[in-house]
C-alpha cells in the first residue's frame, strides 16, 4: 500500500432478483433458456404495451434495502433512462432516479486486521435488465451482432456504495459481505458467471491528508470477486504511476481485460451522456407505508454478522469458526441444530468445518443439498463419545449419512462397525499378532517404543478398524510383557 496516496473506491453492484417472472411482465425470469423464448410483447416494448410491476420484486428490493440498513423513500417512483442501444428494446430503461427505494444504508465488513468497518450505501434501487448482445466477431470489426432479449426485463437491484472503500482487499470484503447478506435473504443466487451479480468500480487516489477526491476512473467487466480485487490493484498502481510522473488521471471508463490482467480504456464512451431521466408515466408511483416497512423488517432473517457474533458468544466459538459456520444460512442452521443436541459445540464445529465442507466440495453441492441434519450429526458424535465407534470409523459413517441420510446408529449396525471393546475378544487377537511378529516384539523390548504402532495397525487391520485403539495398545503392552 502506498504511503503517499490514499485509495478511494466506490462500488456499483447489480444483483438479479430471483423472482419467477420478469419485473414488468409474465415472462419467465429463468436463466439459460433458448434465445428469445422468454419474451413477450411487453418486455419487447412493442408499440402500445405497458409495464405492470412485480410485487415480489418490490418486496425483495425492500428487504435488501432494510437488510443493508437503508432508509426507505416512502414515496418512490420509476423513471426512464433514455439511450439507444440494440439490447434495450424500448430505447429507455425503466429505472429509478431521484427517489430510489432505499438510501443512506451501510454494510459492515471485517478488515484483514480483524476490525470491523462500515461502508456507507448511497442508494438501492429497482430497475429492469437489458437483453444480451452477442457479437459475431470481436467488438469493433464484426459485421453483425445478435440480440437475445431473454434477460431483458429481469428485475435488478442496483446497490451503490459511498466512496468509503480504501483498498482492493476491502472491496472484496465488501462484496463478500454484500453477497452473504443477499444469499441470507434468498433474493438472488449471486452467480457472477451467469451475470446475476455484476460489479463496476470507481477508483481514484488522493494524497494522504487531502480532503478532496482525485479524478476517478470507472472500471467495468470484472467477472469474479478475484477479478475485482486484481483489477482494482492494477488500477491503483496505474494511477499511482501517473501521479508520481506528474501526470493526471483521465476521467474515463476502463474495461478489465482478464487475459492481459490489465484495465484498458474504452474509447468514445466519454462523450457526455445525457440520459434525460423523467418519471415513467406508464407506472404509478409507490407509497410504502410504515406498516409495510415494519412487516419487511419482521421478515428479515438474522444477518451473517449478527449471527457470527452470536455464535462466538453463545457457543464460545473462536471467531474463525463462527465466520466459517455463518458463511451460509444453511450451514449455520445445521450447526445450531447439531449444537442444540450435542453439548460440545467446538466438536460440532470441527466436524462441520472439516469433514462436512470436504464432502460438500467433493460432491459439488451446497449446504442443504445433502442428507445430513443436526440430529444425525449429534447422534454420530454421541457414538464417538461413548466409545461405540472410533473417530476413524466415524468418518466412514458420516459419509454414508451425508449421502444416504441413514441414521449413524443404523449404519454402524448394518455394517458391523461397532468398536471391539471387549477385552477377552481383543486379547485373543492381540495374542495372535504378537506371536506372529517376534522381530517387532524384540525391537520394542529393545526400546523402539514407536514400533508398537505397527502392531496396533495390525490389530486394526485384522478387526477392520473396529478395535478400540487405546484398548489394543494397552493389551499389546501387556502381552509383550508376558513374553
Amino acid at each position, binding site marked *: 500500500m502506498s504511503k503517499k496516496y490514499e485509495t478511494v473506491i466506490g462500488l456499483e453492484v447489480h444483483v438479479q432478483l430471483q*423472482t*419467477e*417472472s420478469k419485473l414488468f*411482465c*409474465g*415472462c*419467465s425470469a429463468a436463466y439459460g433458456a*433458448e*434465445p*428469445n*423464448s*422468454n*419474451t*413477450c*410483447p411487453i418486455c*419487447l416494448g412493442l408499440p402500445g404495451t405497458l409495464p*405492470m*410491476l*412485480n*410485487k*415480489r*420484486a*418490490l418486496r425483495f428490493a425492500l428487504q435488501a434495502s432494510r437488510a443493508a440498513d437503508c432508509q426507505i423513500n416512502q414515496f418512490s*417512483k420509476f423513471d426512464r433512462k433514455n439511450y*439507444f442501444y*440494440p439490447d434495450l428494446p424500448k430505447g429507455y430503461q425503466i429505472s429509478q432516479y431521484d427517489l430510489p427505494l432505499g438510501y443512506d444504508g451501510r454494510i459492515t465488513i471485517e478488515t484483514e486486521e480483524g476490525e470491523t468497518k462500515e461502508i456507507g450505501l448511497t442508494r438501492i434501487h429497482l430497475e429492469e435488465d437489458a437483453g444480451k*448482445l*452477442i*457479437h*459475431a*466477431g470481436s*467488438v*469493433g*470489426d*464484426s*459485421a*453483425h*451482432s*445478435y*440480440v*437475445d*432479449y431473454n434477460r431483458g426485463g429481469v428485475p435488478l437491484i442496483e446497490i451503490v456504495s459511498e466512496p468509503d472503500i480504501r483498498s482492493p482487499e476491502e472491496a472484496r470484503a465488501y462484496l463478500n459481505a454484500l453477497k452473504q447478506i443477499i444469499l441470507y435473504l434468498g433474493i438472488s443466487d449471486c452467480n457472477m458467471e451467469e451475470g446475476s451479480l455484476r460489479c463496476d468500480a470507481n477508483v481514484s487516489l488522493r494524497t494522504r491528508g487531502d480532503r478532496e477526491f482525485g479524478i476517478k476512473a470507472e472500471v467495468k467487466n470484472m467477472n469474479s470477486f478475484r477479478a475485482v480485487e486484481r483489477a482494482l490493484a492494477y488500477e491503483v498502481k496505474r494511477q499511482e504511476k501517473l501521479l508520481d510522473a506528474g501526470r493526471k488521471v483521465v476521467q474515463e471508463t476502463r474495461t478489465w481485460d482478464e487475459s492481459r490482467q490489465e484495465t484498458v480504456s*474504452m*474509447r*468514445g464512451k466519454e*462523450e457526455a451522456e*445525457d440520459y*434525460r431521466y423523467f*418519471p415513467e*408515466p406508464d*407506472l*404509478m*408511483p*409507490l*407509497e410504502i407505508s410504515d406498516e409495510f416497512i415494519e412487516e419487511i423488517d419482521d421478515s428479515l432473517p438474522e444477518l451473517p454478522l449478527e449471527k457470527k457474533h452470536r455464535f462466538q458468544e453463545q457457543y464460545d466459538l473462536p471467531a474463525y469458526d463462527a465466520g466459517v459456520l455463518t458463511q451460509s444460512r444453511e450451514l449455520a442452521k445445521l450447526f445450531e441444530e447439531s449444537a442444540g443436541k450435542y453439548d460440545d459445540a467446538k466438536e460440532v464445529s470441527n466436524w462441520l468445518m472439516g469433514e462436512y465442507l470436504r464432502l460438500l466440495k467433493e460432491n459439488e453441492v451446497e449446504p442443504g443439498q445433502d442428507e445430513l441434519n443436526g440430529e444425525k450429526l449429534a447422534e454420530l458424535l454421541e457414538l464417538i463419545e461413548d466409545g461405540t465407534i472410533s473417530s476413524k470409523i466415524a468418518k466412514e459413517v458420516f459419509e454414508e449419512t451425508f449421502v444416504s441420510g441413514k441414521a449413524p446408529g443404523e449404519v454402524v449396525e448394518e455394517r458391523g462397525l461397532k468398536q471391539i471393546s471387549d477385552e477377552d475378544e481383543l486379547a485373543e487377537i492381540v495374542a495372535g499378532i504378537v506371536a506372529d511378529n517376534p522381530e517387532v516384539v524384540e525391537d520394542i523390548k529393545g526400546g523402539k517404543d514407536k514400533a508398537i504402532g505397527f502392531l496396533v495397525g495390525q490389530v486394526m487391520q485384522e478387526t477392520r478398524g473396529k478395535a478400540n485403539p487405546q484398548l489394543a495398545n494397552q493389551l499389546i503392552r501387556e502381552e509383550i510383557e508376558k513374553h
Partner: protein
Amino acid sequence: MISREEIAHIAELASLKLTEEEKEEFSEQLSDVLNYINKILEVDTEGVEPTYYPLPSSNILREDEVTNQDRRQEMLEQAPDKEDDQFKVPGIEQKE
C-alpha cells in the same frame, strides 16, 4: 434562439440525422416555439409540486407469476433481419 450546434447535439441524442436544410428550418421553428413556450416561466410556481401523474393512484402491482409461453416465433416474425431465433443487427462499432 437555438443554435445550429445545439440542434445537432439534440439530433444526436434523438438518433436523428438532419440535412442542412432541416437544421436551418428546425433551428428557426424550435426557436419560435420556445419563445412561445417560455410564457410558462412567468408563472409563479413557488411551492407548487409538479404533477407527474394525472390520476392520484399508487402501488399498482401484479403477482409474481409466469403467465407467458414460448412465443418467440411470433415475436421474431416481423424482424427486419434475424438468424437462429435472434434479432440480427449490424455490428457495434465503437465511435472514434
